[in-house]
């Protein structure tokens, strides 16, 4: 009884924490641009870390109490707290943007709470893969350096990963984009199978390839995509070849019925190409191509047409085609702005709630205002990524933009799909959805942004200097 009362109050606490977190992101951004005194930056980072800890503690207190203080869950809760606090601080300190690290870990933590509520085993698994992804993220500079030298390898690796499901594929929810590889260790008498989603890692290869291409030495750093005028740029090399590679990736994904994945590669290509070349006509051409391809897919593939029709009016067919989206919409809207309170809703009614529809499950129990805050976290990640490369050279900008663009666009696709804004695709919500491949790949992508510089040591020195300046400024505000 008292627990129920606390849960109902906790809805306001969670919302307050999320809004306060967003406000701190805004304060950080303003301080960075000089609109607020510089010490707000440090203060915001600290506040956000505390918010993550508070959110984690409040969420898991409720879940543990509901479970009757289940020992395993309590252990997961404690371990999770240590992980998000230490991991977040570590990630932030070792990279270029503590704001980005905080936002990533807040998302991860919201996901952990929701997964522990839906299925505690998944929560533990998610933490393990997040830790693995975090570990891999520290090798990001190696990957970047490798891509600069032998970018063809990355294009080939991306293609190889995407083709993998044709060889060892498993079909899940109509899409054949999973791979299951049986492993047998004869000497240890162990046999098991490893399954993962190769397209998640293909994305990493792809942006590494593309950013390397667009930043290669013969690419002009001026603002021009001037083919004839300067002869500095090669149409074949910078447009035709990457376009052909992208198109082949998209075709592979469409054949696997992974439309979300196909759209991800398309959008990433357009964004990076636009950023590199700067011609508005690229966007126009992309829109025309997108409309034509969409129209063709609609008439060629039955499942595309069905998906599109159920998006246009999910209420017309609530029992079948519109079932998933209408169930998600019920979840989002039944309980009102503040949600049902953690554990008091019925996310069990939402199909694929742990991955595709986790946003709807979050909105159901935390309320849709909280869901709006989650959206803000992705905007902040994009902002932080772009702001971290301000004043840097093209190579770094291209990479950060590609990685952050992929995270943000993927978030948009699946959030929009959850609420019926865009047709539903089976992509994951980065850092939040259950899925080892997804969370690990998302962390590697964040790692690319965070450690995206040729000289980490130099970067660290600069950061120290900046820190010292900030402190100086902060002292200056103290009355003598």
């Amino acid at each position: 009884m008292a627990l129920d009362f606390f849960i109902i109050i906790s809805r306001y606490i969670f919302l307050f924490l999320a809004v306060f977190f967003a406000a701190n992101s805004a304060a950080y951004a303003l301080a960075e641009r000089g609109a607020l005194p510089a010490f707000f930056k440090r203060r915001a980072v600290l506040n956000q870390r505390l918010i993550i800890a508070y959110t984690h503690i409040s969420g898991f207190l409720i879940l543990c109490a509901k479970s009757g203080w289940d020992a395993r869950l309590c252990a997961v809760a404690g371990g999770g707290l240590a992980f998000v606090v230490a991991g977040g601080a570590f990630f932030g300190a070792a990279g270029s943007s503590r704001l980005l690290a905080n936002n990533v870990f807040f998302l991860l933590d919201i996901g952990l709470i929701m997964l522990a509520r839906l299925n505690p085993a998944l929560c533990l698994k998610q933490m393990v893969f997040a830790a693995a992804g975090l570990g891999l993220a520290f090798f990001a500079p190696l990957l970047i350096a490798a891509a600069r030298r032998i970018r063809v390898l990355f294009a080939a690796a991306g293609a190889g990963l995407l083709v993998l499901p044709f060889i060892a594929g498993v079909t899940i929810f109509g899409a054949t984009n999973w791979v299951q590889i049986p492993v047998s260790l004869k000497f240890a008498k162990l046999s098991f199978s490893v399954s993962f989603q190769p397209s998640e890692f293909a994305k990493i290869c792809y942006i590494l390839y593309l950013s390397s291409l667009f930043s290669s030495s013969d690419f002009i750093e001026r603002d021009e995509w001037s083919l004839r005028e300067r002869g500095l740029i090669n149409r074949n090399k910078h447009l035709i070849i990457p376009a052909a590679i992208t198109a082949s990736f998209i075709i592979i994904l469409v054949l696997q019925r992974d439309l979300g994945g196909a759209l991800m590669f398309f959008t990433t290509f357009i964004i990076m190409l636009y950023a590199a070349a700067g011609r508005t006509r690229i966007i126009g051409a992309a829109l025309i191509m997108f409309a034509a391809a969409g129209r063709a897919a609609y008439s060629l593939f039955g499942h595309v047409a069905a998906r599109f029709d159920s998006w246009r009016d999910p209420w017309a067919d609530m029992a079948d085609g519109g079932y998933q989206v209408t169930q998600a919409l019920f979840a989002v809207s039944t309980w009102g702005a503040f949600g049902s309170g953690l554990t008091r809703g019925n996310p069990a009614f939402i199909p694929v709630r742990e991955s595709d529809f986790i946003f709807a499950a979050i909105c159901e129990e935390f309320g849709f205002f909280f869901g709006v805050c989650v959206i803000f976290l992705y905007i902040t990640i994009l902002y932080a990524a772009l702001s971290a490369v301000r004043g840097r050279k093209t190579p770094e900008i291209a990479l950060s933009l590609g990685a952050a663009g992929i995270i943000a666009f993927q978030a948009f696709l699946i959030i929009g799909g959850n609420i019926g804004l865009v047709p539903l695709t089976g992509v994951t919500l980065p850092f939040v959805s259950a899925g080892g491949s997804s969370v690990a790949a998302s962390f590697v992508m964040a790692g690319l942004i965070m450690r995206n510089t040729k000289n980490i040591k130099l970067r660290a020195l600069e950061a120290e200097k900046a820190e010292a300046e900030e402190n100086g400024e902060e002292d200056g505000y103290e009355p003598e």
Partner: protein
Amino acid sequence: MSLSKLRVIFIFFCVIFSLCVVRIVKFTLIDSRELVSSPYNKRLATRDERVVRGAILDRNGAPLAQTDEASGAREYPLKKAGAAVTGFAGAAAQGAEGRYAFELTRVHNELLARARNLIDGSPIRGNSVELTIDAGLQKKAYELMDGRRGAFMAMETATGRVLAMVSNPSFDPSEVPENWDQLSGDTEGNPLLNRAAQGLYPPGSTFKLVTALAGYDSGNAGLTYVCKGEEDFGGNKIHCINKTAHGEVDMKKAFAVSCNCYFAVLAREAGYEAMDAAAERFLFNKPLPFDLPTLKSGFALDGGTSAIEAAQTAIGQGRTTASPAQMLCVVSAAANDGLLMRPYLLDSVASAEGKRLKKILPKQEGRILTSEESLFLRGLCEEVTENGTGKSLKGTKIAGKTGTAENKGADHGWFVCYAPADEPKIAAVVFLENAGGSKPCLPIAGKWLEYALGRERDKEE
């Protein structure tokens, strides 16, 4: 790469994410109010069991359904008489209990109620809903139906407020859980089917209101015809009831005596386009707007329809189907100067403490007839009770149309009507399954309307 391009990209993302926010907020705050009560939303059945479900009240505040706070049992004071309206609560909830489950289990000032509950154990009460139903009229209708299989429904023509709705065989809502297997397994009697809103039957001669409109609009209002009791349509024959030859009839006479041959010929003269247009205006083949789930009434006529099928369609047989609620809307619009008011059941929502939270206002569904068309149809209806098949209601200020619908068993009986004839206030429909004809429907409508108008007068005084 210049920063300005990055800014363009950042703004692009801000815009698409803003679309998400707008969509969530708009959907949740505006669009979802109706949708969350959909039977597909299983959440409604599982909301906090500690919340005491709010009461369903009639328009005078008398309870139609309430929860006993001591035992927690849901009580339905009207029992079987109110079942079509209240429905029942639970996983497969129906009627008002299902439709308004969201409101009934919602707690106004929830935090305060929960805090009070923690301190002194006072119950957490859900909101109550007040319906447009009048418990007295509802009971009266159920009594007059006298257990006969069929449906009764009545609404105020000028507002669309539904005053009573009965479906027989009925059931006691408080005993649904224990009798579930028997009730849901009774495929013959189908007690859980709300026949008023969801029963689809051939409308029989009540459909002649539609055919008459098609005739009027196609310039055939003056058509006269000599009825010999049967008429040939492409080798097949249409009969009048008992093969009665009505002699020379004009539309008024034919309508009053319900001459099948005349209307079959009228439809042929008017053409299927005029018939289609008239049926469409009366909302055939369209979802019927109502608070409770309804089934779409059906009407099919096109250039390829055979002559006999077209003739059957014109007299409400063949592939024409309608629910009693549908026919109620037809007669109500005809009586209300051609203006169809959306029939509705929910009048207002109030907190458990009685604070009004929401009030529903009458809504126009649309002007489906012109004043002239409405007057024309009213003239026809008046003649029915003056000199026609409804003569037993002579002198009661009621006007309407009888219907006898052939089907596999004995004929269904229909009577759609309104009163007072000169200044329509209330429209009603009586439908009796396999009653052998429309005769048994007339006294039910007559007595009920008289009672209802009497009550209105008492109220006004």
